[in-house]
């Protein structure tokens, strides 16, 4: 045979080789360093065993494994009162004692709900699910303070978890008609005579498009389309009252039609800004405080092409070069949940009573089910100021103050950590009471340190295991409890 006969084969060969080489590069084991980064940022913490396992996988395989563990429901059984909806009572019709008792009960439920979610975060086999549920809770904000009915906050939490790694379009539709959201953003009771603009504005500004991509006119017209919805507080059901709905023709983003709630939401998702807005937010959660515009456009494309399925977007984000880039290491500030849940999971603390930790989260600025306002938690540098930094370090110091099995009870709810809120004495007393019971917490320091102690390179490995950057404190930390203390109190431990 002559060379000419081989030509077609050769023509095929180079592209095939290129594909093979690219495939080979992608199939490269990610190594320990990248595995640790992925696990810390996506799953609160990274045990050495997990790092070992994931280090043998490629980036794609690792992320696919994490995604395969995602669950649409929590594992920890919720508090028993979540099973039925209790009609809220009119406090004004009660005697003083009855009102006190009712308020105490409402407070108790609110605390129980937080404790439940915290317990889920601590024990879930899919921490990525909880990370994303919390992310969406800070995005599609509703707050207990305004919604009041704890049962509805629980239901919304279920909706968020169900869709957290599902489809954004489906989540948007579900959240818009979620009773807690209907109450929080005043859609409930908005009627055609005087449409309430709150949800219309926030769904554009904060939930899908971001400022500057809509006009005031669009808000007014969208508000008309959102009329007619209500929440029957007697049974917690959502109702739609056609007579209160403005069924007229609306003009939205230059389009004309008899739009209703669903139509408005779909119109929002037709705008290219929506995918970019969400991609940028996820970037700031997982990659760095400063989204790369070119990368955001690429990720938005992926998101749109997947018709708003969240997993492909997350997969693209968590396998991107930017995620693993050295320049982006340690540029994200751990949220109070990251810090606390991360530390408890990392060191495999046995927690008997979540209540004191839930109070601590609130002290540090992240009260579950209660973002400070509709913009959610600002995050980033905002987590760290003089009061919160001292609070964070105090907490860490106490976690590692005791050898082997330590009792955190007194420490957690003593003077320094107690809620200092004049005028909220009910909450303070209740939190203290909760924290007083079985606040024990155990840490097996010898067991956890064993691997590091056995290794000749233990000090360096310990530092690499706990910090995303070289420690600021120059003196090397040895693999002892004191060494752990030194590392978790290092400023670099506040970052991920």
């Amino acid at each position: 045979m002559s060379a000419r006969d081989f030509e077609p084969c050769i023509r095929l060969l180079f592209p095939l080789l290129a594909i093979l080489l690219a495939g080979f590069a992608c199939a490269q084991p990610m190594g320990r360093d990248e595995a640790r980064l992925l696990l810390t940022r996506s799953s609160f913490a990274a045990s050495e065993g997990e790092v070992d396992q994931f280090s043998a996988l490629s980036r794609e395989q690792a992320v696919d494994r994490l995604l395969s563990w995602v669950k649409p429901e929590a594992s920890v059984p919720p508090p028993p009162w979540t099973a039925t909806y209790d009609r809220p009572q009119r406090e004004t019709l009660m005697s003083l004692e009855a009102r006190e008792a009712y308020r105490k009960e409402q407070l108790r439920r609110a605390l129980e709900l937080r404790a439940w979610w915290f317990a889920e975060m601590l024990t879930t086999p899919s921490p990525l699910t909880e990370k994303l549920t919390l992310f969406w809770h800070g995005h599609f904000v509703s707050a207990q303070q305004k919604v009041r009915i704890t049962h509805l906050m629980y239901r919304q939490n279920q909706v968020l978890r169900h869709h957290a790694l599902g489809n954004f379009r489906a989540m948007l539709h579900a959240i818009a008609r979620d009773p807690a959201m209907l109450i929080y953003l005043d859609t409930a009771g908005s009627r055609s005579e005087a449409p309430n603009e709150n949800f219309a504005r926030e769904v554009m500004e904060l939930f899908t498009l971001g400022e500057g991509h809509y006009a005031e006119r669009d808000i007014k017209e969208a508000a008309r389309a959102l009329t007619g919805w209500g929440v029957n507080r007697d049974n917690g059901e959502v109702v739609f009252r056609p007579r209160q709905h403005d069924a007229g023709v609306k003009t939205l983003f230059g389009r004309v039609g008899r739009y209703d709630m669903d139509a408005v939401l779909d119109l929002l998702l037709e705008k290219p800004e929506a995918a970019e807005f969400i991609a940028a937010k996820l970037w700031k959660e997982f990659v760095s405080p400063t989204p790369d515009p070119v990368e955001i456009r690429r990720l938005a494309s992926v998101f749109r092409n997947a018709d708003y399925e969240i997993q492909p977007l997350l997969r693209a984000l968590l396998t991107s070069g930017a995620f693993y880039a050295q320049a982006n290491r340690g540029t994200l500030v751990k949220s109070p949940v990251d810090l606390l849940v991360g530390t408890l999971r990392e060191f495999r603390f046995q927690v008997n009573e979540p209540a004191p930790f839930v109070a601590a989260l609130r002290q540090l600025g992240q009260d579950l089910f209660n973002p400070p306002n509709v913009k959610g938690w600002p995050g980033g540098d905002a987590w760290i100021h003089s009061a919160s930094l001292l609070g964070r370090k105090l907490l860490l110091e106490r976690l590692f103050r005791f050898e082997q099995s330590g009792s955190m009870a007194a420490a957690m709810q003593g003077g320094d950590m107690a809620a200092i809120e004049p005028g909220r004495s009910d909450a303070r007393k209740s939190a203290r009471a909760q924290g007083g019971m079985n606040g024990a917490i155990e840490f097996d320091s010898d067991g956890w340190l064993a691997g590091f102690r056995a290794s000749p390179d233990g000090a360096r490995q310990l530092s690499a295991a706990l910090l995303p950057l070289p420690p600021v404190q120059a003196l090397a930390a040895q693999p002892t409890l004191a060494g752990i203390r030194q590392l978790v109190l290092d400023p670099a431990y506040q970052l991920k």
Partner: protein
Amino acid sequence: MHRRKFLQWFGAAGMTLPAAPGCFAAASKAAAPADYRRLLILVELKGGNDGLNTIVPYADLAYYAHRPRLAIPREQVLQLDDRFGLHPSLAALLPLWKDGRLALIQGVGYPTPNLSHFRSIEIWDTASKSDEYLQDGWLTRSFAAAATPRAFAADGVIVGSNELGPLAGNGTRAIALNNTEQFLRQARLAAPHGLAGNRALAHILKVEADIRQAASGLDARFDFRTEFPKNDFGNAVKTACQVIANPAGVAVVRVTLGGFDTHQNQLPVQARLLQDLADGIVAFRSALTELSRWDDTLLLTYAEFGRRVRENMSGGTDHGTASVHLATGGRVAGGFHGEQPSLAQLDGEGNVQHAIDFRSVYATALERWWGIPSDGPLGGRFTPVEFVKT
């Protein structure tokens, strides 16, 4: 231009926004360096104090008509003039009134008021418009435009609360503490480091440095002869005075008196709280006089809102709008300022219209007290209320 940089530029240039005839006078005041030897003490009346029962319009029949059970009986009111009088629990403030050092600023509120505690206090703390969401406290922006002396222990100290309120946001050196001993103990967790690393790390190191500077500047223990009230608020006042006693200095201290959200059983609750307030203010005056700082002090109360004119069915009042606030200090021009809103012109919720925007009161603190520009930090021109003697 990013809004914050825009404001800083105005502040740094020492300019006021154009138009107002008095602007030349204001501009020349602003050009002089800020006088941070003068101290601002903020007293937060958390929960929303009922102003109507504090400075009582005892000659107004509408007051008694709206509050058949809650109104302070005419004979109990400590009459200040032929229209208004003090709630009896504020008797301890009468000497200040007689000395002409107690200013009563009536009708303080803002347009399109919000009746939610959380939202409304956010509006007050960030000096935002009612439909605007700002991150930084008004004092954070003020100090960004006109920095406090580098040697100060901190820009401001928040006593008894983790919520930085007017000092929220980055770029300000604000410390929250319960008492100075506890703070000094905890501050050892902030160890000395260089200032290096990526932006996030640099921020953390800076906060640590601020904490250490505050700790080294707040370690004085002054033996006051003043007897501070033996209750939570009295402790907070004492802590504030300990902070102020340090030569290193701070520009502002905030204390909080809570429990004012009197939806029920208002009479005894407010009576006790106003007593605490009066006793606390008297203690401040006494302790600051010991420190020779009373003439350098401006004390201002504030709250998220006042309360509904009409009493409710539980012996209390629901959330309201504009209210009266107190100002006192060695250079305060005592007397009535602003205007008691009419009880006959109520809005749809039964609430009064405001007479003075709270940002005008802030403008007084910034321009008349410290001599720094207020337009930039407050996002507009708010004419100061003249309760500070020049």
